[in-house]
């Protein structure tokens, strides 16, 4: 039984399958979807970017992070600073430095800059936070979320404080959303097959043994932290272009917990899990949103009371996690052979695994 030497050749089907399936969704939405449905689809694609970015860190390192939505905040505000017309900025954001005040960049330039900004920030704070392990690291990331939110809520002359900054050109459409998701998937995939990705997954299973194998845990975690911050920074930038307004409230607890539960429901240790978690949860959210609006039955409109959506999604999440504790994909990856099939597994092992589970 000879093994192919190329890791890429063995695993490339996963990102291809994911991107093609999403492309089909984008095409169907574009062809048949209403305006409102298009917006739902764009939101889903942006959430895919966020959750795939989370996966790059959480999935490979095994550390739960509550702080990644702060990178979305950083990306979105950077895009606001770069993309809002100077006339509007000079009224609402007087505190910006002159060169930034007089700049206006198109989306395809502002977005990568926003991603890099978030990544640089992650590089600085990560040098400290990545020294922690387990629950201490999670709590520190939660602190990061709080600090960033506080700064952006109160630095009035630069961020507009609690209120919204308006005027980002609303240039998003479903194709750009798909492109963003595809870019996120490709980056996360390349990271997970990289040397650093493999080393980090080893630290996830057995940190002590990974050190004994020559792995510098802090360094590998930091690399993943920066890569995931870049992806989520991009997502924040596109989110700014999607809503055309930003305010600090959109990048706080609600978004943090919804994206985390999407990741957990899908299966937090696989890229396919990250993507399918978002798709599944988005479908549920959309379904209950419509039920709340009401369904017409023989002239009578029957609707669920408002708030049922959140409760129902909470309950469904719990049910999924009881019966599929490793998520919908059971932490496996999609590929051509079988559906889904775990990589490099002999049939005898699959039987053995079933016995264990």
């Amino acid at each position, binding site marked *: *039984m000879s*093994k192919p*030497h*190329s*890791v890429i050749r063995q695993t490339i089907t996963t990102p291809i399958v994911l991107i093609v399936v999403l492309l089909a969704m984008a095409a169907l939405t574009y062809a048949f979807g209403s305006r409102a449905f298009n917006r739902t689809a764009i939101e889903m694609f942006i959430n895919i970017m966020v959750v795939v970015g989370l996966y790059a860190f959480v999935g490979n390192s095994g550390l739960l992070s509550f702080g990644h939505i702060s990178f979305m905040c950083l990306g979105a505000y950077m895009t606001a600073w770069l993309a809002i017309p100077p006339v509007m900025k000079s009224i609402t954001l007087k505190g910006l430095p002159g060169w930034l005040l007089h700049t206006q960049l198109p989306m395809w330039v502002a977005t990568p800059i926003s991603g890099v900004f978030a990544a640089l920030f992650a590089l600085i704070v990560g040098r400290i936070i990545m020294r922690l392990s387990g629950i201490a690291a999670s709590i520190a990331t939660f602190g990061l979320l709080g600090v960033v939110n506080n700064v952006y809520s109160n630095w009035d002359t630069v961020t507009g404080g609690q209120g919204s900054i308006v005027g980002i050109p609303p240039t998003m459409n479903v194709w750009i959303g798909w492109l963003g998701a595809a870019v996120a998937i490709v980056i996360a995939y390349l990271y997970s*097959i*990289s*040397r650093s990705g*493999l*080393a980090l*997954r*080893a630290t*996830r*299973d*057995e940190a*002590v*043994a*990974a*050190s*004994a*194998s*020559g*792995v*510098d*845990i802090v360094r590998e975690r930091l690399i993943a932290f920066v890569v995931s911050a870049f992806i989520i920074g991009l997502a924040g930038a596109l989110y700014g272009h999607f809503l055309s307004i930003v305010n600090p409230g959109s990048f706080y607890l609600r978004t943090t917990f919804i994206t985390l539960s999407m990741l957990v429901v899908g299966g937090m*240790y696989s890229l396919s899990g990250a993507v399918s978690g978002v798709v599944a949860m988005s479908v549920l959210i959309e379904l209950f949103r419509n039920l709340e609006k009401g369904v017409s039955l023989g002239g009578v409109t029957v609707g669920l009371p408002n708030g049922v959506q959140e409760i129902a999604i909470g309950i469904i999440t719990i049910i999924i996690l009881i019966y599929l504790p490793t998520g919908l994909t059971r932490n496996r990856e999609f590929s051509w052979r079988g559906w889904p099939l775990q*990589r*490099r*597994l*002999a049939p005898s*092992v699959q039987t*053995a*695994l079933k016995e*264990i589970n």
Partner: protein
Amino acid sequence: MSSGGLELVAHEVSVQFEGLKALSEVTLAVPRGRITGLIGPNGAGKTTLINVLTGFQSAGTGSVALEGQAVNGIAAHKLRRMGVARTFQSGRLFRDLPVIDNLEVTGVGLGQRRRDAIAEAQRVMAWLGISHLAGMIAGALPYTDERRVAIGRAIMCTPRYLLLDEPAAGMSEHESHDLAVIIRRIAAELGIGVLLIEHNIGLVLELCERIFVLDSGEIIEVGSPTQIRNSDAVRHAYMGTQQDELLPVEEAVAS
């Protein structure tokens, strides 16, 4: 005991855990290409000593030298890159990863590209005769295979020293015989200095040229297998047995 030769040396190492003396002034040398034994009852400080030698525990006082170079306080992953490898009592495989990836991680940790690390992992698995396990998930392996994979992971890229923490624990006689063959080959064919910690004293007496006996954090005896077998200090202190009783050592040899 010269510190400049091809040896991994602990020199008068003491370690204290909140008042409890885990090691006191322990001096031990592991020469390249030979098998050295370390025995002692539970709680004697054997694992603490391994932790000190591999950078997982800093020595309170005393020094650790790798072929003449002081390596006190150097982080574990850096010591591995300098050629000091170890295994763990509990295996500690990366249980969610396939066996080949378990080995590959070491190659990657030592700076290899994935392609090269995979090639090295395949070479090591062939050398150990575990190539058939390559695709299995490590967490699903039977106990003895787990041990062999752990050794494979440690000897990736041929380290200079290998510290084995109870590799034969829970093995049958037949299995520990196979293990003995592998340990001999590691020292003879690869020129690695092996430190073998074992409760299976028969195995230690069979394999090692020189044996250190540790009790309550102190080295109470050093010598060849014959010397250890006949040592009164070991007889009295090691197992807490009476002089007229048959030592476990002798039982193991007799069987």
